[in-house]
């Protein structure tokens, strides 16, 4: 079943896009991530222009995340204060990221920068998670709960401490703002929500309980992607409402099943699966970068022509 996308300006198979959205929505619900790092390459692969792909997937991520936010809010598993601090850093990081994005695009090396960034970021996070989750799974007995506040690191010595009751942490706002900024920066450059960066950082560095991390991460993604939707629409007019609606429909349904499956699994198992997924995507980009391409040429219409 073909339909024409008015902004992307190409006909697509509705069922194919719906299927992709279901699959990515499933993954997103299962791990509490936006799934942008999967959807962007998929949409570009079927011929959607990069700018339209990134922009039209923002409302889908927002919708999926909103569903998650509502679900986690019912369980009181969102730390809005923590999310707010992260968002504060995120605004600055996003602005910086957009500036860097345009700088690289003008230099003509955006594709390479994006591919290298994907390999490094996804590879590093995926690798770390793989090692950690495998170790956790290898242990016979469930791991003892991590001691809190026993080992003092430099993070604990920073000023402007804040207490986050729901997350049961008491840390300085500075590293949280920095984390938000870093995620915002990478999000703007790579066209992703950044949940897969946020979740492990909150779990491993700030020791926020996993239950609260997913809800809070979804909240942060939701707000960021709502803002991104409006920003993409106003600056580039590149949001395709037809594409976005197909993605939202598939994503919303897929996420429901993902959440259910995710809840039946152990944290370590989830992290192992996510690690493998991240490494697979990183591997795909690495192959693109290192293997001799079958077609070394490509044709594009010069920027700013439309």
């Amino acid at each position, binding site marked *: 079943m073909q339909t024409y996308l008015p902004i992307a300006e190409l006909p697509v198979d509705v069922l194919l896009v719906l299927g992709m959205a279901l699959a990515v929505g499933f993954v997103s619900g299962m791990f509490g991530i936006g799934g942008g790092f999967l959807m962007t390459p998929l949409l570009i692969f079927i011929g959607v222009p990069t700018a339209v792909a990134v922009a039209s997937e923002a*409302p889908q991520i927002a919708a999926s995340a*909103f569903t998650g936010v*509502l679900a986690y809010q019912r*369980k009181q598993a969102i730390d809005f204060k923590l999310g707010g601090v992260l968002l504060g850093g995120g605004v600055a990081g996003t602005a910086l990221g957009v500036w860097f994005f345009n700088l690289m695009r003008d230099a003509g090396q955006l594709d390479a920068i994006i591919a290298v960034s994907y390999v490094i970021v996804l590879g590093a996070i995926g690798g770390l998670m793989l090692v950690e989750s495998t170790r956790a799974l290898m242990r016979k007995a469930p791991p003892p709960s991590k001691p809190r506040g026993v080992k003092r690191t430099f993070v604990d010595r920073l000023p402007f401490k804040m207490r986050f009751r729901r997350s049961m942490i008491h840390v300085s706002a500075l590293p949280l703002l920095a984390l938000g900024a870093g995620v915002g920066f990478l999000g703007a450059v790579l066209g992703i929500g950044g949940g897969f960066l946020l979740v492990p950082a909150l779990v491993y560095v700030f020791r926020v309980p996993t239950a609260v991390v997913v809800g809070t991460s979804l909240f942060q993604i939701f707000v960021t992607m709502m803002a991104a939707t*409006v920003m993409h629409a106003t600056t580039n007019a590149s949001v395709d409402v*037809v594409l*976005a609606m197909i993605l939202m429909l598939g994503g919303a349904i897929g996420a429901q099943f993902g959440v259910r499956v995710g809840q039946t699994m152990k944290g370590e198992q989830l992290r192992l699966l996510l690690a493998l997924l991240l490494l697979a995507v990183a591997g795909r980009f690495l192959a693109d970068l290192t293997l001799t*391409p079958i077609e070394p040429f490509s*044709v594009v219409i010069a920027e700013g022509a439309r």
Partner: protein
Amino acid sequence: MKLAAGLAALVVFSTPTRAEDLLLALSSLDVTIASNWAGADVTVFGTVREPIPGRAYQLVITTRGPAETLVVREKGRVAGLWVTKKNSRFPEAPSFLSVLSNAPLDETVDPAERTRARLGLAEYARGDGSAPQAARQALMRLQAERGLWIEDDEGVSFDPQLFHATVHLPSNTPFGAFEVEGMLYADKTLVARRTITFRVAKAGFEAKVADVAERIRLGYGVGVAGLALLFGWAASAMFRRD
């Protein structure tokens, strides 16, 4: 498009100074892109007026879409990684190009005339002369693969007087004004030349969406964001178990 949609013939009166003239017509002057768009065919047909009996005619029908600056990127190895190494620009290149004829182009005209009259894909791939040969070849090959640049020396059917040719517009056709140029040759000399245009444009819902997205940007963005809220809430309301 359908022939029945209207034989939008553009009548061109012959000039008294020439013996032969061309009469060109299109099956459609407006190709509209709606939700079921999957490409279209535009038929160019017409006749040679006042032909000299016994004379062999060659007809080249060139259809050009809106001009764009096309960039051919070439990947190369830098520190073990394949990254874009070279960009070759082709300014004022037709985003769509179809060169149809009833005989091979090199039999129709001499190379000098071929360059002057810009007959064939290779003439357009010349660009401003700055691009290397490999990039020109790649441009022709890749555009052909996407159905955007077509050359067919059997693309024009020529009966003694009537001719017709079919221009295939692929689903990824650019939109805007398309120019169809018919060039009639006899004995390697241009004897008549006529142009006719058609438009490819979005229609109905698709046109409205694109128009609103372009003009009322903030409203459109807020609207899509609102849809996201609606979808997210609806999914939550429908699937909640607790």
